[in-house]
């Protein structure tokens, strides 16, 4: 089960994770990652997420398929929001289920590392004083995180 969705609205991480195990007795491990908007010490009023409709879905699907080829995962969920997101709100979640924990952990980390570096989303900051903090710059540490899977 590979599930990918891009939406403006919030999502329910537990309902998504629960769907990976409902009615099954062969799942041993579920790992979830949830990414939230931080207020950066009170400086940030909101993040605005822009994406490339069509390609963003395709990239998430490609990443999910790649993960399922690398590890014997039983299910994968990738959800990403777009639009304006306030501090404390969820931005993204990934989940992976498998027989064993190492496979679920690896797959979930892989999903996030490649989501960060290859899914067409861009963040812009809105500051507390009403001005734009500009576009968030890509981090070298994210490229390095993705590199380790090569």
């Amino acid at each position: 089960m590979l599930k990918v969705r891009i939406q403006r609205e919030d999502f329910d991480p537990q309902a998504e994770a629960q769907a990976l195990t409902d009615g099954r007795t062969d799942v041993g491990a579920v790992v979830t990652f949830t990414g939230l908007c931080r207020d950066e010490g009170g400086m940030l009023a909101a993040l605005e997420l822009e994406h490339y409709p069509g390609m963003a879905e395709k990239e998430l699907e490609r990443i999910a398929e790649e993960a399922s080829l690398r590890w014997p995962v039983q299910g994968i969920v990738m959800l990403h929001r777009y639009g304006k997101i306030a501090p404390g709100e969820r931005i993204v979640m990934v989940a992976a289920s498998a027989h064993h924990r190492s496979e679920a952990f690896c797959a979930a980390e892989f999903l996030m590392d490649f989501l960060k570096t290859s899914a067409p989303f861009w963040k812009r900051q809105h500051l507390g004083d009403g001005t734009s903090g500009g576009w968030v710059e890509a981090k070298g540490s994210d490229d390095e995180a993705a590199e380790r899977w090569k």
Partner: protein
Amino acid sequence: MKAVYFAWVRERVGKTEEDIAPPASVATVADLLTWLGQQGEEYENAFGNSKVIRVAIDQTHVKHDTPIAGAREIAFFPPMTGG
């Protein structure tokens, strides 16, 4: 072909998308970035430092040495910062 722009590329060009018709001498993504940078001040501003621009042809990431022949939609954007 259709050009689409995202994030600060979109802001600098001042458009979300447009039809472009580069001359036949423009063969690769790199050629196209150079040509786009010559289409006016806002384009120079967006594409002047073309090395940092990421490109997708028909919604698939491509390198700058990729030929553009047959492309229907070419997207230009900065490095991604989702997640």
